[in-house]
Every structure is written in structure tokens, then in C-alpha cells.
């Protein structure tokens, strides 16, 4: 089992570093999809099948594709040459410090050495039971949140029709309106 963990961890970490350091943004998004797949494999290895497949559906199926569409809509696939600036060094130092503190705390904790207990085998039926009984109120709240977020995302990404802003892009009203409808449709399709 240790070798499986090592392979998945190495793949996930390499693709995560690639997603954060590659120059072409489309390559970053594709490496991000590989990272999400690696994390889903981690979930499957931890006997959390439902969460693993939900991860594949939501993250690889929706979030990664949404990021690819955002890259295409903003036409920003080529980023400028990254420079080794002061803020860059500060960011790396802060990340390393956070990792050092986390590792120190994890290794000094008493529960870190805990061995794996017996396989729990929670079925999807149990998860559904819990969602419909104990967690029914959070489930309703999450449904409301998703609806509000979807409507909000469509409204934010839509052109404002009155042209009240001084952005200077809404001078010609008719094409802009058609474009707004098209963008709203695209965003809606992306989210649903």
C-alpha cells in the first residue's frame, strides 16, 4: 500500500507544482486537472468512494473546464516572463515557513502515528440516510447557496445594459447587448 501512496503523492505534487509554475495558462489548467485526479485517487485509497467520484465530477468535470473557459474568454494564455522580484521571494519564504510550522506540529502530535482502523465500508445508502435526516438543514442551505451563487455569477459576468459605467466599452449599444446575451448564455451553460 505504501508504494501506491508514494506514486499517487508524487504524481499529484509534480502536477500541482507544474500548475503553479508553467508559463502557458492552458498547460496550467491541464496540470490542475491531473492534480484533481490525483486527489480523487487519494480519496479512493482512503475508502471514501463517494467523495472520490464527487471530486472527479465536480472538480475535473466542472471547475477545470470552467477555468479553461475563463482563460479562453480573457485571452490571457501567454503570461509575461516571471521575474524574480522581492514579492516573489517573500511569497516562497512565507509558503516554506507555513510548511515548516505544519510539519513540526504534525510530527509532534500524538495522533499522527495512529494506525489504520478496520475498514468502515460506509455505503452510499448510509450517506444518503444521513443527508436526509441529520444533515437535512445544511443540505437545504447548500442548495440555496448554489442557486444564489449561480445567479450572482451570471449577473456579474453579464454586460450592464444601461452603460452606466465609464469603461468605454458600451458605446455601441446593439452589438454589446447581443454579446451580453451570448455571454450570459455561455456562463449559464458553464455553470449548469
Amino acid at each position: 500500500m505504501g508504494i501506491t501512496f508514494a506514486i499517487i503523492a508524487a504524481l499529484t505534487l509534480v502536477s500541482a507544482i507544474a500548475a503553479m509554475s508553467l508559463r502557458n495558462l492552458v498547460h496550467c489548467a491541464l496540470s490542475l486537472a491531473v492534480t484533481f485526479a490525483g486527489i480523487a485517487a487519494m480519496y479512493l485509497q482512503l475508502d471514501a468512494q463517494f467523495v472520490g467520484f464527487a471530486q472527479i465530477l465536480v472538480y475535473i468535470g466542472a471547475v477545470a473546464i470552467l477555468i479553461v473557459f475563463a482563460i479562453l474568454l480573457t485571452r490571457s494564455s501567454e503570461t509575461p516572463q516571471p521575474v524574480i522580484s522581492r514579492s516573489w521571494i517573500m511569497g516562497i519564504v512565507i509558503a516554506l515557513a507555513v510548511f515548516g510550522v505544519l510539519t513540526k506540529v504534525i510530527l509532534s502530535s500524538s495522533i499522527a502515528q495512529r494506525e489504520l482502523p478496520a475498514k468502515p465500508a460506509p455505503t452510499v445508502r448510509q450517506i444518503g440516510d444521513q443527508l436526509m435526516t441529520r444533515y437535512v438543514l445544511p443540505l437545504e442551505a447548500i442548495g440555496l447557496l448554489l442557486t444564489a451563487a449561480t445567479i450572482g455569477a451570471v449577473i456579474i459576468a453579464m454586460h450592464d445594459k444601461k452603460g452606466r459605467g465609464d469603461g468605454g466599452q458600451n458605446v455601441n449599444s446593439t452589438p454589446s447587448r447581443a454579446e451580453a446575451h451570448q455571454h450570459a448564455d455561455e456562463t449559464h451553460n458553464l455553470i449548469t
Partner: protein
Amino acid sequence: MVPLYYYLIFSALLFSVGLAGALTRRNAILVLIGIELMLNAANLNFIAFWRYSPDPEALTGMMFVIFSIAVAAAEAAVGLALIIAIYRHYRTVDLTKVDSLKG
């Protein structure tokens, strides 16, 4: 099977990679990708603690991750809509150039 701290250290590494990316990259989409990586690292911690807990039948960690994935999906949708709105206004997604409120 590997002990619990392997998963915790792997998750800490993933979190640090996401944090470094979110702090150093200047493209707004890459900052959002870094935030997604950090969220995933936290979710992995939840699942690891749930699996290694003495009472896994309670399903608490798993429920938390399910709700967390739903919130992360909403966050990604709103965040990318904001990035598209910023791009339309400023014609760039470079975060160092979006500084109208800077004193």
C-alpha cells in the same frame, strides 16, 4: 497501510504549493487555481482524519467534505465571473495593474 502523518504531510505540501502560487503569480486565474489547491488540501485532511478516527461510522468528516466541495464549486463560479468582469473593465487580468483603489 501508511500511517496518518503521511497524508497530513502530503496535504501540508499541497497547501504550501497552492499558497506559494497564490502569493507569487500575478495572473488572477492562477491565484484562483492556488486557492483551489489549498481547499483541496484541507478536504484531504478531513477525509484522512475521518478514515483514521476511532469511529468512522459517524461520517462527519465525509459530510464536511461533501458540503465543502459544493461551496468550492460556488466559489469557483463566482470567482471566474469576477475575473471576466475585471477583464472586461480593465482589459487585463494582471493583478498588479488592477490598482484603482490603491492610495
